[in-house]
């Protein structure tokens, strides 16, 4: 997973980064966002989400901006946005290659 922070991201990791694009979020909001966004196809278990948040924070992709009781709110950093865009570009190329292969 460590190498994937700068390379290919797993699906849950990509959606967690995606969740921060429009607004700052806390963990519980992210679970709801991902479930809603994917129509329930991608589910984030609490262990998975907690680990991804901790890892992203460690890698500087997100940063904690507020603590309200048991809630911690994070926001995307420039590095996080850059990583998201890189991953999106990679996936677009994959998709294009896949579609071309069908022709």
């Amino acid at each position, binding site marked *: 997973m460590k190498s994937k922070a700068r390379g290919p991201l797993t699906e*849950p990791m990509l959606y967690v980064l995606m969740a921060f694009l429009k607004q700052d979020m806390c*963990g519980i909001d992210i*679970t709801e966002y991902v479930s809603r966004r994917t129509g329930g196809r991608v*589910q*984030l278990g*609490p262990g998975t989400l*907690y680990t991804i*948040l901790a890892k992203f924070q460690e890698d500087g992709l997100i940063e904690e901006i507020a603590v309200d009781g*048991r809630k911690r709110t994070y926001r995307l950093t420039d590095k996080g946005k850059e990583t998201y865009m890189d991953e999106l570009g990679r996936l677009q190329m994959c998709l294009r290659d896949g579609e071309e292969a069908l022709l």
Partner: protein
Amino acid sequence: MNKQSCWKLMPVNGYDIFAIESYLERMAEQGLLFSMTAGPLTLYCHDEAKTLQFHLEPMIDKSEADTELNALYEDAGWWYLGTFRNNYFVFATENPEAKAYTDPDSLDYVLKRFSKQKLISGLGLLAFNFFLLSLYHRGWPGSWIYLQYFTMETISKYPVLPLLLSILGLVFLDLYYLLGFLCLLRFRAGKAANKASRSGWLLTVGILILIPVVINTFQLFSGLDYRPIDLEDSNFVTLSEIEGPEFRLTGNRMYNMDYISHGGTLLDPENWYFQQYGTFSNRDGGSNINDVPRLILSINRYPMKALAEKRAQEWRAYRVMEEEYQSLSPVGGLEEIHLLQSDERSYLILRQGGTVLRVEYQGDKNLSKFVERFAQMLQDL
């Protein structure tokens, strides 16, 4: 602890996540809900018997439950029960379909870090092995024969017991750790528990064996192992008392002790030692340590009478002269009195319960006249 709780030994290895989760689930089915751990023991609260799913979240770089972690789990239908040996946060849910990890990569990442953490714990265990064995390595007397024939002597002189208990206890702990680490690697590889899972008892036995060693080590390092007594405050028989008030003791403090050497720990029998020598100078101006009057007292106190009897027997087995010890009728509360007396040198062995005294005397006085005085001395210890 309230009446509705109970402590039980954890039979499975503490590093085998799958086995612990399964075991806690079986306990819940019997109405025992996990609460906390203390060493090899686990505390359960009596609850209604129910089917629960348990999840052990490895504690990485944390000693207390993270509020955010709890919030995430609670939001997903889990509830936090407590910590398991500072290794895991324990969560449970009634939903059999609930999954704590929905991404194998994140689980692998956590387990990888947890394994590294436990590998460092293994290095700590290795250091603990090295510490105990280097501390007590001089407990090996060098020969089994010596240990066989002079068992109590050897135990009294060398830290034999701490060494043997350390080796035994560490074998159990090391084995527990190694099997546990194998279980952890199997879990990471997605393999189910095997026989190694049922090695929880190794930890219990290892800890029980090492508890006295740890207490003994604490006594050594805190200085509780040596507690000298002022001669004036003791009721010890002195050379002057035997030889008479005019007798001159040597001025050399190395030979003429003005204190009683006294010590002992949990695994080292309590002991006293005292010696006095007469002045080394004679009329010709020469001096010889072997010629001057001397008194050497060695006392050991054992927790069992049989051990003191064995010690007295071993002392009698020393052949310092060609003659045999003579057993005298017990007086003054003594249970054994053995005397070996010649013109110049005498040996007296007295036993009272678990306490045994050996007197080595060089001089021309008759030691048998002081038996009751020595008995009084033993009583006052």
